């Protein structure tokens, strides 16, 4: 971002700044002089640290987005969310059953969902949040895990929810239940673990470890490649 490009005027936490056109909210704040500590993380849309509320010129709506992925425009009013004080119930995943009873016990608020779809509208990942909450209400863990898979836990859904549900924490529970209990298991994995425990490959690997560089190079370049 260089100084000789077109500038736009934005408000950061109520203060007015001129920043380069095309900046993301993070870039705009740094350009304005902020050394960010909260509301910033991976800067690539994968960590959920930079949930931000903003309003655009001549619009009354307060929208949500990720500061690292949202481009500023002239007249935008920006407020970053430093922390989401949402409840995170503690559980032992080994003691749970992958069904509706677990959801009832750990996330009873899920059943308060009024299907208003505010969470889905708030999601910067375009996840069907309401649909996965509805799936959890029906005890459909698989569907909830699938629909919520791309959640990065920015917290915007929970902050906007009128029924006080912490959707993203319910999502990780659904994902873990599915991964641990419901996904089809793969006997080949167990077999290989056992083979390694039994020392099946030790001799072969030791042989490679003992090779001089020349022989190892030759073995490497002559190895059979079987990929698809």
């Amino acid at each position: 971002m260089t100084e000789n490009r077109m500038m736009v005027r934005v408000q950061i936490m109520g203060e007015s700044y001129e920043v380069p056109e095309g900046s993301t909210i993070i870039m705009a704040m740094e350009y304005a002089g902020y050394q960010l500590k909260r509301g910033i993380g991976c800067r690539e849309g994968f960590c959920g640290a930079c949930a931000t509320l903003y309003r655009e010129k001549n619009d009354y709506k307060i929208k949500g987005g990720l500061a690292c992925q949202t481009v500023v425009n002239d007249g935008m009013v920006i407020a970053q969310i430093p922390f989401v004080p949402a409840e995170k119930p503690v559980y032992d995943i080994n003691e749970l059953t992958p069904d509706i009873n677990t959801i009832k016990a750990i996330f009873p608020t899920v059943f308060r969902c009024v299907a208003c779809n505010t969470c889905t509208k708030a999601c910067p990942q375009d996840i069907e949040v309401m649909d996965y909450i509805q799936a959890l209400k029906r005890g459909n863990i698989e569907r909830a895990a699938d629909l919520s898979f791309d959640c990065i836990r920015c917290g915007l859904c929970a902050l906007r929810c009128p029924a006080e549900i912490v959707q993203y924490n319910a999502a990780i529970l659904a994902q873990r239940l599915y991964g641990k209990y419901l996904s089809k298991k793969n006997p080949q994995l167990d077999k290989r673990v056992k083979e390694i425990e039994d020392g099946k490959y030790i001799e072969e690997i030791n042989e490679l470890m003992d090779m001089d560089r020349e022989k190892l190079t030759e073995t490497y370049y002559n190895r059979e490649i079987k990929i698809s």
Partner: protein
Amino acid sequence: MYPDYMLESIKKVEETRPGRLEKSKKYGKEVFPHMTDKERGEVLSKFHPDYKEGARKEVRVGPNKGEILTTEISDLLESYSRINPKDFNLDKIDYETDVLVIGAGSAGMASALVAAKNGSNVLIVTKLRLGDSNSMMAEGGIQAADQRDDSPTMHYLDVIGGGHFDNKPELVHALVSDGPESIKWLEELGVIFDKNPDGSMLVKSGGGTSRNRMHSCRDYTGAGICRVLRDEVYNLPDKIKYIEYSPVVELILDDNGQAVGAVIYHLETKQYSIIKAKSIIMSTGGFGRLHIRGFETTNHYGATADGIILGYRVGAKLLFMDSVQYHPTGAVYPEQIVGFLCTEKIRALGAQPVNADGELFVYAMEPRDVEASAFIRECTEWKNGITTPSGLCGIWLDSPLIDQIEGQGTIDKNLPGMVRQFGRFDIDIRKYPMLVYPTLHYQNGGIEINDKCETNIPGLYVAGETSGGVHGRNRLMGNSQLDLIVFGRRAGLNASKRANNGVKIGKLSLEHIYDYEKEVADLDINRKKIAPILLPDYIPEHVKQKQITAEYFGTLI
């Protein structure tokens, strides 16, 4: 959307696509010849950024004194501490724990879980939040030799060949042998891996691998793993405590030279606190935010090489810190996402790299350093790249080919993160190729460890990207995710065992800072040069000129 002149070049890509598709259906990924040992050597020495003039220089202080390291690392090591030992009363301990974990990415959290399970009390301290790490951002996959036609032996060969045979053999042995068990451990914690309908793992190949062994969680693999580890840490509040927004700024030794504690600094309240521990696990991640050689990076905001600095100051030896990984496919357009990761899985699924004329110019699955060097050659010497409006150059990664090879819907199902990332800027990667160029991605080297994650400093363990030796001078894709779990778990177990065995801790000391700083001062280095820098500095110069009373200690924090 792409400007018109780029769309002209895309037309050429579309013209060559049917021919390339036909070839691909016939030969799979083998549509362009692999490089020989000699060809790899040539393209690396001529085009890899590590070999450019000024890329490396001698470090003049500390345990690796006299060795040639990456310039930015040598410079950073020749710096002062943010604290003065005389300001600290080490008889007054703020936190005491069995195992101290520094950094909360996947390696740190995996180590914490294992140490807790082994009966130790664990304290995690981290610069930002739990899970804020490069681990969380990994997209493509995690390697493990669990398939029928594969073996840990083949995996070993791929890893050590990819690392140019420099890797520490015992570490490669540990990496490949713990692979399948690590996948099992993750699945039992509730990680969801991509599978075929019969329950078998859906595996793809990565650059430089001889078998399909890349397991994935869509293109959110790092997040798919890291978020589960974090949830489990949250679920063990009695055994694992954590402190966020509190980077370590120095390690504490005792009078026997053991690592026995750390000084943390709270980024917001600016208080320093003293931690005493029986064992310490360093898992602070890598160095992308140093922007080595001016490159953009795929790395997390906090990736500023802190662990390297802290370990080096107490005498820990570094290995392969002369080598930097540039990921071949970083985004070049649009400008808002320059340097962002375009996962290797895109090529694993069949996308081909092509130049401005839509021509193939390299085998798509060379090891990363070789592939990246070939991209740089195409853009510089051979001038077949595409220049963006802001003056950057890139080559096309022909993503629409994926759905044509693997069937409609493959991109949506396997690359939702990528579709979303480019979609936010009106580029549909199902229809249009992605413009890419190498981006700073990974710290190949680090603090030297053995297969128990021990260093030459008793009590100091290292796991993950901060460690050196596992990957030699070039890591292959998917092996870092495996590294985090394998060595995170080993560090956790060994650090916990040491703590459980009863460590005799002597008198706590920060004297090593004086010794180190004396070496730095002898070089006439400006007293204002401070490390670790903790966060990168992106404040523009015209603002800095007005920050008349602000103090920059590394950065403005």
